[in-house]
C-alpha cells in the first residue's frame, strides 16, 4: 500500500512512459539487474536527477532574492551540490 499522495508516482510514470518503459520490471528490490530485461534506467533516473540538479539554481535564486551577495548565493548553491547529492 502506497502511503504517499500520487503526484510523484504520476511524474515517474510519465517519465517512464516517455522513456519507453513497458512496465514489465517490478523494481522489487534494490540491486536487481536492469540490463538484462532492458529497463531504460538512465532515462528514468534522469527525472529525479534533474529535480536534484534544479535544487542548485533554486537555492541560488532564493538566496539572491533574500538579499544575499552573489558569492553567498554561490556558497549556498555549492553546499547543495556537495552536501545533499549523495543520492
Amino acid at each position, binding site marked *: *500500500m*502506497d*502511503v*504517499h*499522495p*500520487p*503526484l*510523484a508516482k*504520476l511524474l515517474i*510514470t510519465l517519465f517512464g512512459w516517455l522513456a519507453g518503459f513497458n512496465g514489465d520490471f517490478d523494481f*522489487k528490490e*534494490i*540491486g536487481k539487474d536492469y540490463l538484462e530485461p532492458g529497463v531504460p534506467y538512465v532515462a528514468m533516473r534522469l527525472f529525479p536527477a534533474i*529535480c*536534484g540538479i*534544479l*535544487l542548485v539554481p*533554486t*537555492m541560488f*535564486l*532564493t*538566496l539572491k*532574492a*533574500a*538579499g*544575499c*551577495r552573489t*558569492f*553567498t*548565493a*554561490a*556558497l*549556498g548553491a*555549492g*553546499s*547543495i551540490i*556537495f*552536501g*545533499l*547529492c*549523495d*543520492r
Partner: protein
Amino acid sequence: MIATAFTALAFTSFSNQHELGPSRAFDPSWWFWLVMTGLGLGMTVSIKWVGLFTIAWVGSLTLVQLWVLLGDYKHVTIRTFSKHFMARVFCLIVIPLAFYMAMFGIHFLILQNPGEGDGFMSSEFQSTLNSKGMQDVPADVLMGSRVSIRHVNTQGGYLHSHPLMYPTGSKQQQITLYPHKDENNIWLLENQTQPLDIHGQPINGTSAWFNLPDLPYIENGAILRLYHQPTHRRLHSHDVRPPVTEADWQNEVSAYGYEGFDGDANDFFRVEIVKKKSKSGVAQERLRTIDTKFRLVHIMTGCVLFSHKVKLPDWASEQQEVTCAKGGTLPNSLWYVESNEHPQLGDGAEKVNYANPGFFGKFWELQKVMWKTNAGLTDSHAWDSRPQSWPILQRGINFWGKEHRQIYLIGNPIVWWSATAAVVIYILFKGLAVLRWQRSCNDYSNVVFKRFDYEIGTSVLGWALHYFPFYLMQRQLFLHHYFPALYFAIMAFCQIYDFATARVPGIGIKENPIINRVGAISFLVLSTVAFGLLSPLAYGNPWTKTECNRVKLFSTWDWDCNTFLDNYDAYSSLPSTPAVAQTPQQSINTQPAPPVNPPVVEAPQAQVPIVEGEPAVSGAPPPAGQQILSREERVEYRDQNGNLLNEEQVKALEGKVEFKTRYETRTRVVDADGNEIQAPDGDAAPVAPPHPDVEGKHDCLLNIS
C-alpha cells in the same frame, strides 16, 4: 524536495514584492509569485505529506505579514486588508487544495484496475475498479438463497469454510474470513424447520425452499441454519475456546455435520437487523442484499458471530479468525450479504449493487486509509534513525552492497554541521535578543539587527517546522526525512554568513568584498574535498579498506569497511560476472503418516494463491475419504545441477553467490498401514498448482486461501 525548494523561492520572491510596500501590492508580479507559492504548496503536498510542514511555514509567515498589515492603519484600509486576506486565502488555500485533489482525480482516472492494495479499501471503493465491480444482485434474500456473507468492519472478506479441521478445540472444520471470491464462501440459508408441502408433510433436503408458492422472505428475527454446500456442513458454535483468542467470552465457530444430516440446535442463528446501519425502508424490515447490515445471534449460547483482525496460524493459511462473541463490539459483529442467488429470483427480480462513492467519497476514504497506513509503519528497520540523531549526522542508510562495493547515504559532514551550527547560532542570538528586549535595550531600532532577526528567523522557522514534527511520529524514520529541514538550515547558514561578511557595518569586513568571496570559495573547496573523500560510498565505486577506515570518523557511521578490498588493483582482477548461482530449493514433504483407515493423501494447500485481477479458485478438496495427515516444510540448498548441498558447503558459499528461491510441493500417499502407495502416473495425487510467481516472492504468499 524540489517542490519545497520551489515554494521557498516563490514565497521569498513574494515576500520581496510584499515588502515593496502597500502601494505596490496586487501588481502582476505580486500576483505571479503568490500564485506560484500556491502551486508550489500544491505540488509539495501532492508528493508527500511533509508538504504540510511547508504549508505551515508559509502559513505562519503569511499570518505575520497580515498582522503587520492590519496594524498599518495609515496605509491599509479595512477594505484593502480584506482584499489582501482574500487573495491569500485563494492562492494559498484554494489553489493547493484544488491541485491536490486534481492529482487524485488523475490518479483515479489512470488506475482503474485492481491491484495489490485493494484489500485496504472498502467494498464500495473496490467495486469502482474494473473487473472488481460486480453484476447487480437480486435485492431480496430468501430462504434457500445461496449467498456470500461479508464482514463489515474489517477487510478480512467473506465467511468461509474449507475442508480442513481445527487442530485445536473441537477439531471440527474451520470457519474463517477469506478475502477473495471463492466457491467456499457460498452458504445456503435454510429455515430452522423444513417447509411443509400441500399435504402437510415436510419437504426434505436443502433444495426444499426453491419452489414454494410464497416467496420465503427472511424477516428480522428469523432463525436460520447456514449450510455450506461444498462440504455439506452447517455453521455451528459451541462452548469451546477459539483457536487463537482463548478468551472466556468467545466461543469457537466451526462447520459441523455431513451430507443428509439434519443438523442440531447448535446450528441455529437468529438474524438481527441493525437498523441504524441499514439502508432505510424495506432493508430494515427484512434481509436485503448489501443494504441490510445484521448480526447473527447463536440461539443456544446467545453469542454473536464475530470477527476481528486476528490471523489464524499457518494451518488456516493465515486467514482471519471467526468466533462467536458475547459482548463483542458492534462493528465487528456486523455482516451483510454480498452475492445472492435463488431459483425464484430470476432476471425480473429487483436488483441492487454497491452505491458508487463518487470522487469525494473515494478521495476522503483514501486519505483516511493513507493516514492509518502511515501511522502503522512502526516496525523497526535495520537502517532507521530517530530525529535527534539527524542534525549531528550520527548515522546514514545502507542502500546496496555487492562485489566489494557499497552505496551508503551519508551527508557531507562539512555542510551538514555548518548548517546545524547556523541554527544553533541563531537560537543563541534569539535568546540573547529576547533577554535584551525585555531589558528594553532597544536593539530592534537597529535596522540590520531587525532584518537579521527576521530573515534568519524565517529560515530557521522553516527548518524547525520541517524537523520537530518528526518527533511526534512513531513510524519508522530515516535520515533522508531530514533533507527538507537541511535545505532551510543551509539557507540560514548562508544568510548568517552574508550578514557577517557583507551587512554588519563597522567591523571592517563589509567594506572588503574579497573576504566574502575568499570565505565562500574556501568553504566550497573544503566541502568538495570532504565530498571527494566520501564519494565511493555515494557512487558505489571501488575503495580500499585503509582509505575507508581513515575517513570513518565515528563508529556510528556504520558502513562496513571490510567489504572493500585491500587495494584498487584487486578490483580489476575480480571476475566480471559473479560466480554461478546456486539454487536452494524449498520443498514441502510429508512424512509417512501413522496408520489410519482410509488411504491418506497430503493436499499441501487446499486452495490456490490468487493472481491479481483473476477470480479466486479453490483447489479441489482432497478426494472423498482421504484426509491430510501431516505436512512438513523444509529448506534444501542445491547447486545449479540439482545436487544437494550440506550446511558447510552453504556456509562457504554465503556472500559469494546469489541464492534463488524455488518452491516445490511433493505429496506422498500412504495406505491404512502407513505404507507408501505409488501414485499412478507418478504424481496424480492432488498437488497444489504452482504459485503464479514462484521465484523470489516469499512475502507475497499471504493471499493463499
